[in-house]
């Protein structure tokens, strides 16, 4: 089975959406169940990496809007830093999460509205962006001609 065999490409095409869905689920359920932003980020990144493996860099980026996914790493870092240092502006130590321990939490299904979840989202974006960047960097290098 070579890289551009119809089988590989078909599987890659089929699993992309489920992978991203699983990643989203792991992220949303992070505070309730196994998994967190890191795991979700790697899952999503693996889904995208599979496209690179099956279709190559050029073909993948023609088909899917993934060219700028590495920029998500910047957004993730900024989000994590923001969550960490916004409390400082209010005289709290960094990373003091909101709402406080004894307060009620707003639930959207299993998703809890917490600043810790925003922090986790930052980690997710950063990991997703970084892993895709790494795979893309290596994939875009000029290899030896066979």
């Amino acid at each position, binding site marked *: 089975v070579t890289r551009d065999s119809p089988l590989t490409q078909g599987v890659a095409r089929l699993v992309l959406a489920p992978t991203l869905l699983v990643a989203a689920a792991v992220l949303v359920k992070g505070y309730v169940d196994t998994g*967190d932003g890191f795991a979700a980020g790697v899952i999503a990144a693996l889904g995208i990496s599979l496209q690179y493996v099956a279709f190559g860099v050029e073909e993948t980026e023609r088909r899917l809007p993934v060219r700028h996914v590495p920029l998500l790493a*910047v957004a993730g870092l900024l989000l994590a830093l923001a969550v*960490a240092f916004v409390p*400082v502006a209010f005289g709290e*130590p960094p990373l003091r999460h909101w709402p406080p321990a004894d307060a009620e939490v707003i639930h959207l299904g299993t998703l809890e509205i917490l600043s810790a979840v925003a922090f986790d989202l930052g980690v997710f974006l950063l*990991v997703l962006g970084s892993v895709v960047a790494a795979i893309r960097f290596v994939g875009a290098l000029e290899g030896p001609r066979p």
Partner: protein
Amino acid sequence: VTDPYRTSRAPAVASIALAVAGFASLLAIHLRGGGTVDWPWAPALGLRLHFELDGLGALYGLLATGIGALVFAYAAVYLPEHLRAHDRRRGAVPFFGALTLFMVSMVGLATAQDLVLLFVFWDLTAVASYLLIGFDRDEAESRRAALMALLVTGVSAVLLLIAILLLAAEYGTFSLPEIVERARPGATVTLAAALVAVAGLAKSAQVPLHFWLPRAMAAPTPVSAYLHSAAMVAAGVFLLSRFYPLIRLSGEVLDGLLVIGLASIAVGGILALTRDVLKQVLAYSTISQYGYVVTMLGLGGRKAALAASFYVIAHAMAKSALFLTAGAVTQATGAKALAQTGGMLRASPLLAAASGVAAAGLAALPLTIGFFKDELFFAAALERGTVWAVAAVIAAALTFAYIARFWAGIFLGPPNPAHADASPGPGLTVPVVVLAAGVLLGGVVVSPFLHLGEAAGAASYGAPTPGKAAYHLDLRAENLMALAAYAGGALLLATSALWRPAALAVARAGDVAGPARLYTSGLAALNDVSDAVHDFEVRDLRARIRPILVMAGVLVALGIAATPTGTYVVGSITSNDLPLALALLVASGAAVACVFPRRHLMLVLTVSAFGFSMAVAYAFFAAPDVALVAVLVETVFALLFLGIFSLMPGGVLRREAAAGPIGNRRRVNAAIAALSGVFASAVVWAALSRPASQQGAAADQVRLTPDAHAKDVVTAILADFRGLDTLVEVTVVFVAVLGMATLLRRGRIT
């Protein structure tokens, strides 16, 4: 046709506006009696964002922003020509960005009262100066000069950090005012003061760490002007003033400052008389001028503290004007050395007059602010004793001589026929005129400058330092000393044929056996060591891993042998543990299988197989989070390995696989692996087969998880309890991505 070298004016305008706004607000706050900002940011460590605009902060902050505004305005005209001359099409944004960073970190340094904060700004000035000195990155000389400045000031900054930690350990706070309040003379204070002094002296380019400053001339001229008058070099003297209440407690450190200051005056003055390159004359002059300030701080006493602060103001205005003159002359005529210039008085009378005023200010002629800087200096030296007064007069004579030689060499004498009519434009002249006007203003209406000096002197001395600066038409000692200095300077110039060979010999001796030589050879030796280590590590990875494994195995064996019998216990295996045991058995099999494959692809696959079987073991060991992460990370690694293998020529991989390890020592390797493996297993088995009751931090975290609104302990730990760790880790990940982008794609992330 558009000019390909046309640069945007926006960065220059923005930085000038910031400097002007900073100057205005600092002045307003200072006139209102100062201001304080104090936020806690890591209360557990006692760290605060504590800024206070006291007299000292006001002086250096106003210099950094005021001279900054003029230098930036000059640079707005200078930089486009500079970029054109270096065939660069962009560079305005990094240039003005680094200048602005320089200015902001100077203001932060000047106002910081928390020592950690102070250290951060101190290092930021070093970073900014590195970027600016090495701005012409195509030139090896610039890069070398930038590295030298960074190493000399950066390594000495570590001494400052050590001093800060010493003080914090002794007095239990990072707040400088509190430390000053509690400090008493003693070994700790003396040691800390000495370390601070070394850091400050290195930054102020004092002998013997002065050699980086003349090299830093490789920077574009506006940078040099800023570096010498209001930023980098001034920061060193600022540090000494800021820590002066502590330095003052130690007689030894004060004496050391005195010696180093006088040596710097002598070395800088003599070398300034021998140099021909315009900017080098000024660079050695700076070494000598800050030598004055260091000497005054070393003299001790209220008069000296005031004189030192006032000196910094006067020097900053005069020296920046002279640097800007040198840059204007070079850009107009292309001449870089005194030998190529001359007679520019006719073509550029305004520039000649303005820089003449600045030179007069440095030479301490009446009607300039410089007269009072020397008046205060002489008074402080007289207070200490006759010997110091004589030394002060000699120093002033040296200054008079080299600065007269500099100005006359550019503007008097026969014009160079190659560029007789060349004259710098108004953009390069006006900032010099403004600075010269300041020098003159200070010579006529001295009181505002004196007040600023008094405020700074009081802040650094820790007590009011009143002083008087005025013209007196009588034969008081200060006036006689000034006259003696002028006469001595004139005499030096008139007799230059007599001493010039000797001075040149001193300069040559410094080149051959000076500290610069030591720096170069030290750097080369360090490079050799690094090469040797790199060679050893890269040539044979097994050689690097071997000592670690041997040591780990032997130490564990010793540990087990040394503990009393009965301490090492292994828990029993029950039927509940069967799945885990089976998973571990599979993992062991996979680990052993890793030894056999020779082809790289097979090796990667077996290593992944081991990783996946470990993930199964984690899952049975009640660690589903770890198992999940292990599976994911193994997959990513396998992918990356495959990607990298596909980049390698197939022949190389096949040859390497056939060759086997370098210096094939199969038996030794096997013995080492067995030794470390057996003892590692023994420890892990003992630790994991008896799960201790959950205690300490782990139990607390489990208990607190509901309070964090979480049901999953691991996520709560990552995002909440140990959130700062996570933050640092993701930052490291991001930096690693930037590193990959830099290595593989010239810094482009997408």
